[in-house]
């Protein structure tokens, strides 16, 4: 029982499943802290996953795949930025459009390039971000207790460790740097930033770009590390779950990590509890699957705690008041 809920395998898979959530959540955090609502995390991840898998399939090179995926994701982010910042369009509508565009393009292009109905071919290990055993930890695998810990933290891909490092980096940058201060300010009161002689548009573009880069990494992780190819809709709502986690974390970096780990854990359990019976009763996994969304709705409604979004998020900036 304990093995099922807290065993090395469960927790290790929690981390694997959390990585894309954390990246997308941080992407959303950067974007929304600057005042740009990003419903398009899902689409950016999806198109990045496709770009990564295609590049890896053509060139057999994981790093190149990562680079191309980031480029493509940033391209989509710029479309969103142009609509939201220059055209002052509805940010939710733009996000919905990006999601559709990504879902459609990935399959249409994939079908043309690989003739497998939108799938990409299975990737070889050179073309993927493979698990790496952290030096010194693999010897501990068979030691009691410590071995469990070692098996949880070792054996992940480079991208996973990069992701974990990005959390403190984000927290630090937001709290301590000039860029972070200005970015937080522009999401709360862009007028204050403008009258201080700082460009609102420039700051928001920077935030949108960071979101693009992070979604690019997330997509790469999904198709080249978590799986070994691209299949249609493979992000499976992770972008929206990341939004939920962002709300849960109250738009802060460290809580975002915990929220994503929690949701990752629920995902891991959803798979592992399939068909498992407790005292003769089977828990329908659907209820575990919907838990993150239900929890978010309950939280948003203010029944437990309160989550307050950046004040200016979603509102196009105009000088006139």
């Amino acid at each position, binding site marked *: 029982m304990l093995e099922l809920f807290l065993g090395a395998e469960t927790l290790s898979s929690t981390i694997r499943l959390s990585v894309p959530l954390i990246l997308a959540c941080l992407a959303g955090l950067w974007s929304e802290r600057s005042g740009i609502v990003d419903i398009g995390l899902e689409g950016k991840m999806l198109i990045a996953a496709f770009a990564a898998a295609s590049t890896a399939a053509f060139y057999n090179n994981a790093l190149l795949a990562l680079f191309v995926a980031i480029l493509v994701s940033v391209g989509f982010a710029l479309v969103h930025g142009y609509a939201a910042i220059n055209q002052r369009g509805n940010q939710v509508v733009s996000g919905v459009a990006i999601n559709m565009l990504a879902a459609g393009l990935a399959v249409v292009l994939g079908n043309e390039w690989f003739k497998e109905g939108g799938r990409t071919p299975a990737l070889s290990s050179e073309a993927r971000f493979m698990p790496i055993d952290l030096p010194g930890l693999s010897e501990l695998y068979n030691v009691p207790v410590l071995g469990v810990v070692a098996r949880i933290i070792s054996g992940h891909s480079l991208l996973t460790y990069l992701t974990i490092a990005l959390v403190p980096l984000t927290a630090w940058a937001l709290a*301590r*740097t*000039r*860029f*972070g*201060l*200005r970015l*937080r*300010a522009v999401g*709360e*009161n862009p*007028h*204050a*930033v*403008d*009258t*201080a*002689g*700082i460009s609102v548009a420039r700051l928001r573009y920077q935030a949108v770009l960071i979101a693009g880069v992070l979604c690019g990494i997330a997509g790469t992780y999904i198709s080249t590390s978590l799986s070994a190819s691209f299949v249609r809709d493979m992000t499976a709502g992770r972008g929206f779950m990341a939004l939920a986690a962002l709300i849960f974390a109250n738009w802060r970096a460290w809580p975002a990590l915990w929220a994503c780990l929690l949701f990752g854990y629920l995902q891991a359990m959803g798979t592992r509890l399939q068909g498992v019976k407790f005292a003769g009763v089977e828990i329908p996994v659907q209820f575990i699957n919907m838990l993150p969304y239900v929890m978010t709705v309950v939280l948003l409604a203010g029944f437990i705690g309160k989550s307050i979004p950046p*004040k200016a998020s979603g509102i196009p900036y105009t*000088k006139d*008041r």
Partner: protein
Amino acid sequence: MTPSTTPAIELIGIDKRFGPVHANKDVTLTIRQGSIHGIIGENGAGKSTLMSILFGFYQADKGEIRVKGQPLKIRSSSDAIAHGIGMVHQHFMLVDTFTVLENVVLGAEGGALIGPALAKARETLTHLSQDYEMDVDPDAIVGELPVGLQQRVEILKALFKGAETLILDEPTGVLTPDEADHLFRILGQLRDQGKTVILITHKLREIMAITDHVTVMRRGELVATFETKKTNVEELAEAMVGRRVLLHVDKSPAKPGVVVLDVKNVTWKDKKGIARVDNVSFNVRAGEIVGIAGVSGNGQSELLDVIAGITRPASGEIIFEGKSIGQLADPRHLREEGLAHVPEDRQHRGLISSFDASESGILGWHYDESLGHGFRLDRDKVVARCTKEMAEFDVRPGNPLLKSSKFSGGNQQKIILAREIARDPDLLIVGQPTRGVEANERELGLRMAGVMREAA
């Protein structure tokens, strides 16, 4: 107080248009260093636009700005800040979730990391608060501070960035009288230290109380500049309005009847808990016109909202025709009881600009049985009603299908007035009846009020 010979600021021939609106017409103005200079005028006189141009928020179409004798191009707020100009806006430019320190250093961080700037700001703040009676906790969250202190943060922000000239746009609108007095003491001290203060306001009392010079603006033009000591309230008021202020309307004597509205000790507080309407009592009798006077921003609008049932008082009671408004509670019931309301902000609240005139013409009465039975809304009846009202009130163009936003301010006013009077109300509340209305239309509005009185 030794004003140097070079003026702090010179504005020469400033001209600015926003589309069809000529906001500033060839304005030339000199501001002496080490003085408090008031700029006064009615809403829309162009005061704020002029100052926004000086602060680099807008660019003038024509004209020149000189700071300490140097001609400058001020293209953005950062240019203005770099030349020692600071501005405290009417709506504060503060980040509510930030601490006082974070707000102060925003835009003046001095490096990629904000640690050193925060430390420096903490030190400066201590000095400034000693020099100028400006105590603020540097670590307080700004959104949790009272308005008076938030304003002080705005001033500190400007001083931290090295402002020599400080522009304040309607600084006392949100302050209590005590807070305002405190602000004036601070401004006086700033002047004594050699800083220049520009005060935009439409409150004559403030001008007389603290300024050294005062400039009057009207409809985008600079009317005159006076030395405050050598002028008086009447002269300024006349310059502001452009005619003798004592307005005389020919009217028959009132024959007051029973009490229709009784307002007892009404207090209304805004979100921050400040009493914007404080313990107000009065009553209105049938057949009389009661004016609620005062410079805008003194709580009249809020009082009207409370009476019309749109917002609720924090304490006190309002009795309308023997019934407490607390029980009637919402605008719809009040209307049914015979209370009509022409709101102050007509374009924004009195009608819906994207609706056609006939639909705006039933706003608030749309549920009436005469416009369609039950759930139905009979379009023909709606249009017919509007056509009739438009003819009665001479609305031009008399087209009920035209979008509400396409009518001039005066005609929008008439559409609203027609709607509210049509139902023969017992009490008509009108906020700012002459705002945005041309002189001849103004007269019509006043005449209508007179007619109402006779009929009541």
